[in-house]
């Protein structure tokens, strides 16, 4: 039942075994609930509404993790007066996954005003998740008063710099980048020379078959320049990663899901667990978007990422809170 032809997308026009068009089409479905698995370069997709019918062994990864983002603990305006409740709903979603994820990545704007009690509340709520380890990168709301020193002390004391670090899990190399410090007037996100030099060294000796996952708050591709949705010096960072066979970039900041594929690099931005923001250009500014109460939880969500050894890309499933 899981292998009905109409679910499979087979486009191999470049004859290189990589189904890019199918992948992009699948990614377009992901926002409405598609589960995509890359197997030997060929993409198979399954509608989330039929997930219960699918043999879970076929789609399960070797390991999985979850991305949450933009919890904005402390926000209390019309767009969502209960960011505690929606974060708790996100944790309930995580706990409902068939296999507990290995850990959680939080791509920043954990707090709304960098207050200690806001960070404390998020940590408390995430303690209720089935995954006990959480890795954080800061958003601009997390480094408001002290150039991020409080954030650094709490979440990345081991960082060789201002909050960046890397770690390995199940053969996948994870890289946490910080692009919300030292921002210049009129600019976008910024990585800075010191971090770029660290990154170059960090990946230099890895074999190109090592799957790479980069996570950072502001998107590492230019989503929408008018609203500052991009990173000034990300091209340099990505140049160090071009030689790898599988690179996944996970970002937050824009409070909506978007995907882009560039060669072997796939970019995903995540929904917020706090409030949605408008699509590029669809409002005068990128601020919190107030929607009817019964629609809010359809626009907030989490991301489940599955890794299967030997496969090009990670299987990414976005799900909304409702």
């Amino acid at each position: 039942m899981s292998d009905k032809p109409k679910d499979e997308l087979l486009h191999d026009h470049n004859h290189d075994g990589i189904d890019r068009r199918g992948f992009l089409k699948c990614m377009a479905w992901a926002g409405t609930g598609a589960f995509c698995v890359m197997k030997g370069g060929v993409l198979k997709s399954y509608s989330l509404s039929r997930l219960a019918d699918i043999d879970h062994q076929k789609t399960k990864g070797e390991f999985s993790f979850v991305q949450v983002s933009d919890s904005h603990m402390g926000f209390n305006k019309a767009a969502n007066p209960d960011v505690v409740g929606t974060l708790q709903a996100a944790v309930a979603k995580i706990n409902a996954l068939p296999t507990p994820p290995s850990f959680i990545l939080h791509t920043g704007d954990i707090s709304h005003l960098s207050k200690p009690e806001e960070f404390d509340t998020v940590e408390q709520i995430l303690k209720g998740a089935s995954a006990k380890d959480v890795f954080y990168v800061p958003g601009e709301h997390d480094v408001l008063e002290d150039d991020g020193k409080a954030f650094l002390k709490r979440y990345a004391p081991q960082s060789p710099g201002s909050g960046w670090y890397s770690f390995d899990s199940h053969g996948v190399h994870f890289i946490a980048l910080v692009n919300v410090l030292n921002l210049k007037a009129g600019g976008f996100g910024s990585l800075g020379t010191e971090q770029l030099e660290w990154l170059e060294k960090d990946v230099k000796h890895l074999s190109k078959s090592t799957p790479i996952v980069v996570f950072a708050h502001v998107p590492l591709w230019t989503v929408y320049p008018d609203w500052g949705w991009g990173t000034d010096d990300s091209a340099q960072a990505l140049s160090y990663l071009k030689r790898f066979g599988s690179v996944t970039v996970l970002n937050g900041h824009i409070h909506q899901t978007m995907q882009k594929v560039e060669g072997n690099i796939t970019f995903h931005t995540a929904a917020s667990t706090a409030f949605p923001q408008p699509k590029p250009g669809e409002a005068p500014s990128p601020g919190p978007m107030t929607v009817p109460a019964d629609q809010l939880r359809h626009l907030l969500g989490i991301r489940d990422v599955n890794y299967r050894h030997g496969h090009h890309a990670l299987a990414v499933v976005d799900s909304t809170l409702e």
Partner: protein
Amino acid sequence: MRIGATLLIAFLLVTALVITCSGQTSAATSAAATSAPGATAIKIDNFSFSPATITVAAGTTVQWTNKDDIPHNVVSSDQAFKSKVLDTDQQFTYTFTKPGTYEYFCSIHPKMKATVIVQ
């Protein structure tokens, strides 16, 4: 009668002088209907500062008010001033004593920039 006329003329002259002086002051500052007495008001809303460019006399106090539903701050590009984070309805004031052109921005959302010209 003469004294009365003299007094009247004097009164009119003083009034005219006062009106003229007020007129000059308001020409030098931005037109902002809700500015606090003596301060020039800049509104922060919709991820922008308005007015985006103002010209004031040296010694003028400028007051920024955040009317947006997201926090912002006010940071000068040359480190002359930096506000704390302003949540909705919070304010920051700064008195410009030295003439010059002061570019400033929101360091949380750096695309937001504006200028104060001090003469």
